[in-house]
């Protein structure tokens, strides 16, 4: 049985200066599943995924979200897409001039056209759901990294997206906070959300992944179910999973 694709990149090439980061990459992300995009640092994981929400445009190739081609959409039409497919950055990217509540309220007001009072009310409810009410009035810069990442996630979830992209969500978190985050991600999966996670965290991959995309040197080296990823005979995959120093990576 074929699985519906949430997002699809076809023959995407992206170059920065002289450096070709992606070379004719083709990837299909299944809907309502958890797909991990993994690979060594600097191999183009974030670059690949940013194409889906139109933060980057390919030099050549095509990008689709729910069968709609997005790589040639104007910026104002991408706003519609970004309500449904939300990207959470590796850094919390919260606005330091605003409180936690205002950060969450901002997306609601801009994406849904709400008035400030209504936006603040819904933002407060969202923070409460994630147990973040106590820091609603805090300025993000004064919070620990774990809290900032949770606020960043709360801001994304406030829009009730159908697809959530998390860029290295557990980086910089202690093991307990990482486990908490994985638990939350598990609940989101149960609710039918599509998740695309960029990560190096093998524990999270084992715990959550349905599908794994392994990128190496600007291309897709492996794409398939996570069980096959961990038992793959590919030398680069085996090296990555084993964390070995010697090898192709």
């Amino acid at each position, binding site marked *: 049985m074929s699985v519906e694709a949430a997002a699809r990149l076809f023959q995407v090439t992206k170059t920065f200066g002289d450096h070709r980061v992606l070379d004719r990459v083709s990837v299909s992300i299944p809907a309502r599943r958890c797909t991990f995009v993994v690979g060594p640092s600097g191999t183009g994981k974030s670059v690949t995924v940013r194409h889906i929400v139109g933060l980057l445009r390919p030099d050549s190739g095509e990008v689709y979200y729910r069968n709609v081609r997005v790589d040639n959409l104007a910026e104002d039409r991408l706003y519609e897409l970004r309500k449904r497919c939300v990207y959470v950055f590796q*850094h919390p*990217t919260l606005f330091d001039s605003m409180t936690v509540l205002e950060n969450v309220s901002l*997306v609601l007001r*801009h994406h849904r056209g709400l008035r400030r009072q209504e936006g603040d009310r819904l933002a407060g409810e969202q923070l409460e759901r994630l147990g973040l009410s106590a820091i609603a009035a805090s300025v993000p810069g004064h919070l620990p990294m774990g809290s900032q990442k949770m606020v960043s996630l709360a801001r994304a979830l406030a829009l009730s997206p159908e697809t959530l992209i998390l860029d290295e969500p557990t980086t910089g978190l202690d093991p307990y906070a990482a486990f908490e985050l994985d638990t939350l991600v598990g609940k989101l999966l149960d609710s039918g959300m599509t998740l695309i996670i960029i990560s190096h965290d093998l524990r999270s991959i084992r715990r959550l992944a349905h599908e794994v995309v392994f990128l190496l040197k600007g291309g897709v080296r492996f794409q398939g179910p996570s069980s096959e990823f961990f038992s793959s005979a590919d030398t680069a995959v085996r090296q990555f999973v084993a964390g070995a120093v010697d090898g192709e990576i």
Partner: protein
Amino acid sequence: MLLIAQALRLLWLTAWAVLRLRLRLREVLVQFHEAGVRSALFVGITMAFVGMVGVYQSASQMAKVLPEFSALGGAVIHSAVREMGPIMAGLLLATRVGTGMAAEIGSMSVTDQLDAMRLCSVDPVEHLVVPRFLSSMLACLALAVLGCVVGIAAGMAVAYTGFSVLPDTFLSLRFMRMSDVTMGVTKSLVFGATIPLVACACGFEATGGSEGVGRATTRAVTLASFLVIVQDAVISLLWEMSTR
């Protein structure tokens, strides 16, 4: 060239946002306070010294030819309104405010905050550039006026104490025409518009962590100062050609 192209693109997007009245007036006031009010002392003190040195040098040269200073004040006022006031305000604004803008936006760029804004449907141009653009234009004009007043007053003090030129004689407007004031105002507004556009363009293009922010800041102050000087020459030339 890439940065100038980016600055021109920002000019177009900013003008479009202003025409649609996406002004964020509260933020304009906040930025005016930062760019204008907090630069006033810096500009005032600098222009006082410029006025004093300018008058001293001019009077010293005049004394060698003909020890008659009745035209001194008029020439100084003429030059302050047309050239020195706007250009010094522009250069000081570029160094003090342009660097701050480039550093702030550059930091946002390298930490993905600009992309985060776009993902929140917040247009970075409307949110960041428009308030800085409007406030900087107003600030540059206000600082140029302040600079002229302080520079002329300081020059007058030197003329009186050093060369016995009475204030009534110094404050002569005989060389001034309305077009000189218009030119001074035009230059101030153009410089005030250029500085934030260049600074924001440099900030938007920043990549590569704190080193990239540093590069963006240096580029911003260098390019903005250079453009202020070039624009001053071009406006003066075009003005002269059009009034001949």
